[in-house]
């Protein structure tokens, strides 16, 4: 309830009903809906938030500094701990970046294996994003429904690599091991039972009228703003920007999806691809609002299921090695390269500079959530307190990735 001295230098005159005092409120770092240790300082006037200032760094471990002392394969576990909800995608991004520097093509089988794993990870990650978003809006049950399905994916991952959260599975040169026998059948069985569950999620959240009331037309982000802030992933596509690195990215990355049939989930002329099979967009929703961001994520889950099915076919048909990892202290060629991949939360970029020794000179991780979060203060200006969890939740951030 501390009153804030008015700054007379930078003022504008607006009309007020009842004059109330402004107060500064700390939301986080210990707050149920800031997804970890984000701290938002809100300047509020009653329920209306006039300014939001994010404060980061509570989970900062300076992974980039650590990377300057390890070989790329040794750094893989550190990438796990960035976006810990999509550790496979982090592994993949870093592995691809290092391979690009080394100009190392992985075998065909490894390519499809990576697609299977990356898309399964996308499903798992979006499930958490969806469940946590429901939680942010006060709906608890979808969270557990989401975790129920995610557990099944984690079981599959555990079978493949022995870990359930920080896998270090995809690595430079391919993967640490081949998929165990029978894994593909289990995976297919999971997909078969998972597809109808998606409709349940739609029924519980996407089409729920309270849910729509809470996130339609809230936190609207126009396309040019999203681009300017460097937003990516569902946040960018939810604003109607047709960009998916799996299709539009660098060749080194898009080669992985070469031959796969998929459409980028983005609204074009008022329609999403194949939207006749999904619940319709409610009339209240505006392109770029929280609802669209959520919806894009939900459609990507469905898309990922298709991609995994395609990948399973190709993987079964492919012969040869699953991609043996390179030596732990493999020498890197001198030079530098940067590669962005489409992780579940957006474009995850890695930058590696090498002086020719096995240990990189400099590594850099470009976090998608970091950029996505930077838009918060813009989106939350002059909203209600209850909208802040709605907006921040729709950005689907993971603090481990933001703070690195």
């Amino acid at each position: 309830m501390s009153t804030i001295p008015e700054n007379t230098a930078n003022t504008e005159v607006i009309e007020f009903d009842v004059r109330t005092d402004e107060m500064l409120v700390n939301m986080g770092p210990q707050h149920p809906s800031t997804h970890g240790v984000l701290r938002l300082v809100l300047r509020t006037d009653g329920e209306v938030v006039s300014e939001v200032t994010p404060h980061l760094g509570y989970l900062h471990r300076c992974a980039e500094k650590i990377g300057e002392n390890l070989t790329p394969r040794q750094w893989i576990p550190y990438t796990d701990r960035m976006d810990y909800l999509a550790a496979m995608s982090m592994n993949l991004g870093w592995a691809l970046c290092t391979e690009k520097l080394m100009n190392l093509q992985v075998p065909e089988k490894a390519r499809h294996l990576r697609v299977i794993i990356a898309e399964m990870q996308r499903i798992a990650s979006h499930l958490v994003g969806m469940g946590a978003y429901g939680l942010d809006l006060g709906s608890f049950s979808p969270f557990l429904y989401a975790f129920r399905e995610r557990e099944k994916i984690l079981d599959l991952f555990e079978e493949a690599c022995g870990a359930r959260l920080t896998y270090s599975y995809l690595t430079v040169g391919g993967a640490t091991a081949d998929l165990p026998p029978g894994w593909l059948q289990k995976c297919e069985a999971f997909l078969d039972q998972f597809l109808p569950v998606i409709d349940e999620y739609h029924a519980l959240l996407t089409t729920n009228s309270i849910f729509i009331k809470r996130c339609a037309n809230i936190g609207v982000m126009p396309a040019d703003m999203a681009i300017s802030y460097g937003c990516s992933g569902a946040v960018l596509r939810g604003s109607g920007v047709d960009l998916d690195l799996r299709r539009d990215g660098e060749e080194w990355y898009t080669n992985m999806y070469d031959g796969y049939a998929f459409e980028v989930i983005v609204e074009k002329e008022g329609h999403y691809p194949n939207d006749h099979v999904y619940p319709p967009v409610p009339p209240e929703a505006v392109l770029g609002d929280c609802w669209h961001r959520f919806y894009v994520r939900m459609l990507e889950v469905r898309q990922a299921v298709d991609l995994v099915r395609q990948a399973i076919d190709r993987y079964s048909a492919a012969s040869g090695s699953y991609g043996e990892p390179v030596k732990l202290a493999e020498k890197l060629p001198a030079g530098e390269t940067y590669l962005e991949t489409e992780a579940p939360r957006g474009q995850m970029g890695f930058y590696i500079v090498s002086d020719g020794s096995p240990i990189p000179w400099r590594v850099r991780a470009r976090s998608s959530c970091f950029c996505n979060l930077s838009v918060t203060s813009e989106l939350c200006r002059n909203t209600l307190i209850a909208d802040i969890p709605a907006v921040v939740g729709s950005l689907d951030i993971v603090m481990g990735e933001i703070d690195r």
Partner: protein
Amino acid sequence: MSQFLINQLGLYPLLVQALMAMLTASLILGVIAGGSVVFIWMERKVAGRIQDRLGPTRVGGKFGWLQTLADGIKLLAKEDLRPEGADALLFRIAPYVAFCASYGSFIALPFATGWVGLDINVAVFFVVAVLGLEVFGVILAGYASASKWSLFGAMREAAQVISYEVPLGLCVVIPVMIAGTMDLTKIANLQAGWFTNWYLFHDPFAFIAFFVYYTCALASVNRAPFDLAEAESELVAGFHTEYSGLRWSFFFMAEYGSMFLVSALGSILFLGGWNGPIPLAEWVFGQHASGLSGFAFVVANLLGLTVFMSKAVLCVTVMMWIRWTFPRLRIDQVITTCWKYCTPISAVMFVGVINWQLLGLPNGSDLLPHHQLGVRQLPGAVREGAFGKNQLMPQAQSRDEKSARHKEALPAPLHAVSDRGES
């Protein structure tokens, strides 16, 4: 019983009165405390089942019966924290204010014919009034905590409860108007017989009014999707952010107590109270419970109590179901729901029921043939009495005529019972 104590044991009447009062008070306390223990356990089980989990399974056997008790003991053992900047007196007293309001309204709530703490003839009014006081506990807690989140919760609660009292009151008045009395016992007994006699099925307006009532009741006891005062994803825990241990559990008891109370009130007003869907007691005993005496009365009342409890618990369960299914509304949407939807709808229902009564349109009790066991005629008689033409346009009458009419307006058995209820 008190007569027995006075006459047979020669006890001092005042002492007997005090003893009886304490007995009643502790019975009600038992209902509210035991009720919240059961409801908290139920909430966990219901939530668990809704969410594909089992809920508590360990403490006290397979179904985790004693989980709440274990938690209660844990809460008792917890440190009673008070924020440094808090207003000590108000901070300490707020949970008890909330609890007392919830508890106080139970005094006038009948559980079966004659089984009521205090038979007030404006019971409906009293219950709604005292329940409304719970908001003070919340406001004081939020204000005294010296926490911004608590203050937000308190402000939301104040705005919300004040707003929802309007449609809630309008909906409560509808059955009162149909029955012509504010005495809850009488209202319930007037719905005896087949389920078509319940005021829920009285006419289409009353039917809709029940759902409006239920929505407003949800809002006034702060249950999801209207649990704005403690919205955990926005306000951490709202008004009870700074509370721990026993004081916190008092808020919890108050919440579950009020949940049960509004459910019970709803079932008395709209769902026939302790009257089952079929006139079972009448078939067995040949008469409605209110006309019985002695052992048969107790048996019939126990049956009624079971029916009443099941209805109330069913309503509570639906509240839980709603809580674990829906997202939470935003504060402006909550207020909008009240003023733009609930209030106009309940006003229209109110006017609709008035006109239905005035025009003498057929009501729900005409759907099934009246069974011929005597009690069925009573509600009709009361309706005549309360809403007959001579009542709306009365002439000056002498005192005798009037009191005579009042006498006849009330079914004789009810007189008998209300007398017995006191003894």
